[in-house]
Structure formats: structure tokens, C-alpha cells
């Protein structure tokens, strides 16, 4: 239910970034990494993006969302990597178990909580064509 506020933060960040480092041409795709621990609807995030980018230079661009699985670091034995999941009837998500699979120790989450733009796909404007945003 907080997809709009997060889409807004992504958009603000990207607009500021493009002001500092402009691209030549239209941004068609915005590639995003979303950690699996976030309780976000990808569909709602895409819709929020569609609406919030109206009348911005990013109008018409689409979010490409890549889901990132949890990776942890164990505070006791130093294990780094993925964790097992709780599955079965009645479990609505394949919940990751936040504990070390090697020694059972406490872990820190290294990946799985992020929401970040990692790349843009840009379509170069053909020579001579006027960008409607500049007119």
C-alpha cells in the first residue's frame, strides 16, 4: 500500500540524477532491483510509476523489476549466501528463515531489502527530430 510513496522517491531520485547526468534520447525502461523482503506489489508499483511520470521527461517509460532473494552474513561463522525457506500448506509466501543455514547463528541481511534503480534503457532520438519535451 506504500507503492506510491516509494515510486515517488524512485522518480525524484532519477529526475535529480538526470539533471546532473543527462542522457541523449528517451528513457524507455527503468531497471529496478526489489528485495524480496519488501512487501510491495510490483503491479501497483508499475501503475504508480505510470501515473507519477506523466508530464515529466520520463513519461512513457516502464519499470523493469528484478526480484532479489535474501542473502545473509552470519555473525558467528561468517557464512555468506542464501537461506532456506519455510514452505507448506497455509504459508502465503515462501518465507526466508533469517538464521544461518550452516551454524544456526544470527545473521545480518546483506541483500533482500533494497529498492534501487540499477540501469536505464535509452532510445536515441533520430537526428533532426525534435523532442516534444523541449518544445
Amino acid at each position, binding site marked *: 500500500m506504500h507503492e506510491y510513496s516509494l515510486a515517488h*522517491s524512485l522518480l525524484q531520485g532519477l529526475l535529480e540524477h538526470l539533471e546532473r547526468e543527462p542522457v541523449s534520447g528517451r528513457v524507455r525502461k527503468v531497471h529496478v532491483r526489489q528485495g524480496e523482503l519488501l512487501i510491495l506489489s510490483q503491479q501497483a508499483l508499475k501503475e504508480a510509476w505510470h501515473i507519477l511520470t506523466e508530464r515529466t521527461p520520463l513519461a512513457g517509460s516502464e519499470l523493469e523489476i528484478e526480484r532479489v532473494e535474501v542473502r545473509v552474513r552470519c555473525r558467528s561463522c561468517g557464512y555468506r549466501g542464501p537461506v532456506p525457506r519455510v514452505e507448506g500448506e497455509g504459508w502465503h509466501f515462501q518465507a526466508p528463515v533469517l538464521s544461518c543455514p550452516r551454524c544456526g547463528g544470527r545473521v545480518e541481511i546483506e541483500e533482500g531489502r533494497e529498492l534501487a534503480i540499477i540501469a536505464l534503457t535509452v532510445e536515441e532520438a533520430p537526428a533532426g527530430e525534435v523532442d516534444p519535451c523541449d518544445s
Partner: protein
Amino acid sequence: MHEIRTGFGDVLKRQLELAERNYELLADHGVRAVNVMGAIGSGKTTLILRLAERLRARGLRVGAIAGDVAGDDDFKKFQAAGLPSALINTEDQCHLDPHRVRHALQEFPLAEVDVLFVENVGNLVCPADFPLGCEQEVVVISVTEGDDMVRKHPKIFAQTDVVTINKLDLAEVVGVNPQRLVEDYRRVNPHGRVVLTDAKSGRGVEELLSALGLAE
């Protein structure tokens, strides 16, 4: 078409940075803060009042921040109990965020409290994604929500190290086995602490204080 790699703008890292600033502000004033999360009607406010009574009996000064979409009902309860308190109305936002909490903390008489409870918006989904900068977090479930709550929302439970199962006195009436909630929680969070409470009678409140590291 060509692809440009960017390495900027993890929007949740930004939330985490804001939360860390809150953590530092609280630490500078020697305030121990607890983020209290849970569904609407799980008993967050009553539990906070019970915890506050016990802490005050030990000579500690307790404050509370009430986070609600609208209205000041919980805030008034904190005021009536004589707790220094503040109200955050999120205007339909489904969770507290570190930025709003920062503003509330800046206005709060932090020098007058040792322990601060931050009652999140009643919601078992969204608050999980927004750290506030409190040193402790607790999720309150009531047995009246059903014994499948952990299975329905494993992500918030996997990430929260203290859980309390409240309204224990009603378990039999509503036909819920609290042990099922306890076992499910242990599966997703083997390191967490779970406490059974009945805030109305005060049962389990002392144990909850100890789980939150506030019993000393």
C-alpha cells in the same frame, strides 16, 4: 536502444539513513525507544500503558508517540496516563516513516524521558518496510486475529525479534491455539523472543519488558 548502468538511488537505503539519524538523536538523549507494530485492535495502546506503569514503578520516565492515520484517541489515552506524548497523524499513509518520526522527535521533550514507545499505525504489512531508528521493535498480534497470522504475514515476523501474542484470555473463546502462532514464529525467526500476554490483566507484561531488554 542502449543501456546505461547507474549506481544510485536505493530509496530504502535513504530511509535507513534517516532512521539512523533518529537513532543517534535518541542515543544522544539517552532515550531507549521501542517501535510497537501490529494490526488495528491488537492491543498496542493498552500494552504500552501497562508497560509504562511498570517502568514508572521502577522510577523510569516514560513517553509515547501515537501514530495514527487520523484522530487522537490513542494520544489522549497517553495524555490521560500522564505520559509526555506526541501525535503523528499520517493523513492516510499506512505506516510511520523515519522522516515524520524525526519531526516528532525534534518537538518532543526527550530530556524528560528514559523510555519512549512509538506506536505505529495499525497495520501488519507496511510498517515492516520502514525502520524508524528505535533500538527495539515488537509486533503485537492478538489471538482474535486467528492462529494463521504468522503464515499470512511471515515477512514482518521473520524480521522482528520480539513478538507478543496478546488477548490470551480470549484464546479459548475464539477457538485459537496460541501455540500454533508460537511455533510458526519460531520457524521463520529461530532467534526471536515470543511472549504471551493479556494486557488487560497484566499477565506476561513483565516478561515482555524483559524480552525488550527493559526489565533491569
